[in-house]
């Protein structure tokens, strides 16, 4: 009986996940999830790029060397540095998710989120220093 009455009620379906994702108020947990998805997709994209960039290996040493020289230009170095923060975020947040699911991380999820950003930014700049130490020393050194 109740089901028959329910069927007669005209309702408006509001299953619009894009609109909902854009309009719903986000906290650290939702940002972590969104960044994790975006960085995951970016890393899949990079994987294809990586395989493509290694493909000159089949054309001999000289072709590969030529390609590698292109990747050591400053533009690609900066791109690589940006890639590093994507990898960093995805892996640090992955550890955070493991701690949430397997330890009591759900009680400290906001602290864990902040902590992973702090560690990430420190490692990002440390890596920047290692990657560009030659250029940095040339500008600021003797």
């Amino acid at each position, binding site marked *: 009986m109740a089901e028959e009455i329910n069927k007669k*009620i005209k309702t*408006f379906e509001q299953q619009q*996940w894009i609109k909902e994702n854009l309009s*719903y108020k986000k906290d650290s947990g939702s940002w972590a999830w969104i960044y994790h998805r975006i960085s995951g997709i970016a890393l899949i994209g990079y994987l294809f790029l990586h395989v493509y960039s290694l493909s000159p290996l089949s054309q001999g040493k000289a072709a590969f060397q030529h390609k590698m020289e292109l990747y050591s230009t400053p533009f690609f170095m900066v791109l690589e540095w940006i890639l590093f923060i994507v990898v960093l975020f995805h892996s640090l947040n992955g550890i955070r998710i493991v701690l949430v699911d397997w330890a009591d991380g759900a*009680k400290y*999820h906001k602290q864990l989120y902040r902590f992973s950003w702090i560690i990430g930014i420190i490692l990002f700049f440390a890596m920047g220093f290692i990657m560009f130490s030659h250029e940095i020393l040339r500008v600021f050194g003797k």
Partner: protein
Amino acid sequence: MQIQVRILRYNPEKDSKPFYQDFTLPDVSPDWRLLDVLHEIKWKYDGTLTFRRSCAHGICGSDGMKVNGKNRLACSILLKDLNMNNPILIEPLPAMPIIKDLVVDMTGFFQKYEVVKPYLITKTPPPSDHERLQSNEDAEKLFESAKCILCGCCTSSCPSTWTNENYIGPAALLKAYRFVFDTRDEGADERLDIIDNPDGIWRCHTIFNCIETCPKEINITWHLSQLKKRISTREM
């Protein structure tokens, strides 16, 4: 004090889709609850405004709605805690079919709730001289999960629910925790079998929207993580 309120309206007999209607209330106090604002509108401005409310004290869980982009109970927020420089945006709970104005169809929500068998399952006869007893420590483990008032704020705030209407949702899973970890209950394996599927507990991606929105401040994700651990370790 004057405030502006913007409400998503929908009348199934007249409207083909919902629309926003603005109200200006010239004389309200910052100490008012949002529910008082809705009453003011319904009683003085527009009697057709439809919303659910019952106890008006955060116990019955009827007046869950999306306020300024976040699910809350209208009776549990004060105006002074909202940003009143902009119009207060009031919409029905997300992802659930709208019946009229702020009233949503919660049939699916309660069907999912029933799936986890939200009642005590026993297989052994009760002790003859006393009831089924439980230690204080064991009861303590259930206190937080038993505070749930089934307002639907968590399930409708979850991005997993928005994309997958079959996802059982945090409220039902929290209820599963409440019985799985009850020392008097003997149906844990039945419940774990039910929630151990892609539309069950594994659809929880630890987004934490449920915790942010829960009017009873239950750490739902922590309880779900205990269920995940229990399912993963029971085979070992």
